[in-house]
């Protein structure tokens, strides 16, 4: 029971972390290695708005999401657009930006245990014999409805369809009058907002520390690789796979192994089936 409940919660939080990364890669083929940094920066912006400027909590969250989205778009517009299409440069450039943000924050004095965000709702609930606090339940519900909403968005709105078209064939999309750079910028902004959503949902459970930026990056890569790069629906299912696997190892072996599971998942997936569990790219590559 404990495994089931905490496994689900862990899985949803993994899915939230990975969703932004998967979205950006899926649409614009940019591996956004600054994902973890965007996650952390959203946490700190919310903290500043809430504690230092005294804005209402809800307002602070909305504002910081906007800031994050703009930051993501600026990052694409001024940096990544120049190395677009050169995968390795994209990785190195975005990773370096992530480093600048994270280590800059650390240098700026954001370290230690003092940075926390309040939970949405205090108190807890008993599911079976496992106590679960309300915040985790809210997180799970929002997480799942977010995925459902995204699915509807990409399948039924004009922008969503345009994004999908670009994901499938960028040149064809260009010919149909879809501005691919604009869409990629939008996708980056969107991915940044998703990273922010994940941050505001997950961070109240603990402290905001810079290190977790790297942690989030690895987790989101794990989720995306296992699910198949470029397929965010795959990433969602992979999150459940890794989420449960992690909780099971924590319960039966030890908490040291939580990270080992994720990294092992990445390495094994890449060795055995590089296109991931739900990906279809390998087959396409072979056809050329």
């Amino acid at each position, binding site marked *: 029971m404990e495994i089931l409940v905490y496994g689900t919660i862990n899985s949803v939080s993994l899915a939230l972390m990975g969703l932004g990364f998967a979205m950006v890669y899926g649409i614009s083929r940019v591996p956004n290695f600054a994902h973890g940094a965007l996650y952390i920066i959203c946490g700190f912006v919310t903290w500043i708005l809430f504690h230092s400027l005294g804005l209402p909590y809800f307002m602070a969250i909305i504002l910081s999401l906007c800031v994050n989205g703009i930051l993501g778009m600026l990052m694409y517009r001024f940096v990544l657009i120049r190395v677009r299409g050169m995968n390795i440069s994209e990785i190195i450039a975005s990773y370096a930006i992530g480093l600048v943000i994270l280590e800059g924050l650390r240098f700026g004095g954001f370290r230690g245990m003092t940075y926390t965000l309040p939970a949405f709702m205090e108190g807890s609930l008993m599911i079976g014999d496992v106590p679960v606090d309300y915040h985790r339940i809210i997180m799970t519900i929002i997480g799942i409805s977010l995925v459902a909403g995204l699915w509807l968005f990409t399948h039924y709105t004009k922008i969503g369809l345009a994004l999908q078209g670009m994901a499938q064939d960028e040149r064809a999309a260009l010919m149909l009058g879809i501005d691919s750079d604009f869409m990629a910028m939008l996708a980056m902004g969107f991915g940044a907002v998703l990273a922010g959503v994940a941050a505001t949902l997950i961070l109240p459970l603990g402290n905001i520390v810079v290190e977790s930026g790297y942690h989030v990056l690895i987790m989101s890569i794990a989720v995306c690789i296992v699910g198949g790069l470029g397929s965010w629906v795959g990433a969602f299912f992979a999150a459940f796979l890794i989420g449960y696997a992690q909780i099971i190892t924590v319960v039966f072996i030890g908490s040291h192994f939580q990270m080992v599971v994720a990294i092992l998942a990445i390495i094994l997936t890449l060795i055995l089936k590089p296109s991931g569990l739900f990906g279809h790219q390998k*087959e396409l590559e*072979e*056809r050329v």
Partner: protein
Amino acid sequence: MNPEINEDMTKPILQMNKMSKSFGGVQALKDVSFDVFPGDVLGIIGPNGSGKTTIVNCITGFVKPTSGRVYFKGKDITGKQPHKVADLGVTRTFQIMRPYYSLPAYKNLVIPLFSPRAKRTGGWRGGGRLGNRQTIAIDILEEIGFERDSYIPFKKTSTLPTGYLKRLELARCLALKPEIIICDEVFSGLSMSEIASMVPLIQRLQDEGITIVMIEHRLRELFQVANRVMVLNFGQKLIEGTPTEVMADEKVKEAYFGSEEVEEVMTYA
């Protein structure tokens, strides 16, 4: 004469047995079987997307067939890795040329001369001993139409025109002292005069005892060199026979319906 060539001319050197391949849901090949005999020039024709290149990929190991077998001299080579297939002497050219663009032209041939097969056989015309690789590379280039005394063999590959690149593709096969060359559209993208100079080259290779499988769109030139022709349509074999038989067939006319080239070739045949 090449001692490795199968003396028994009645036994097929390459056999394809009920080969099928599907990509995802698309069936690219469906139960295609054919035999190639030593010294043959087999032409494979068919409209775009009829699975011609997939046949090449399946034989040479670049793609694993869904079902069916490939035999080379009676030995099963299905699903072997590409370099092992090439090591047996089954070589191929690529439809989209794949030279090493950052190297000079003659260095393109030095690379295949490092392969185990070239070491064993000594390269094209080599008597089992491999001499200086660069000299051999330039020798091969000269025979295939690169002017020796010019600077063309030393030019960067990315600056060469298409005609030379196509020859380079063939030269890469020859460096291995092949038994079979599978040419994937060597004539496409060439001008009329370039094609005219390629045809005797192919005929010369045939005279030297190399079995050739040609995948081609240029029917007129193909029918000059091929002694048997197979027609593919939607991944299935329509007919196989001599060029005259094939051109007389109603089904082929249907597949190529309206194509002026067929008319042209018909009159030629």
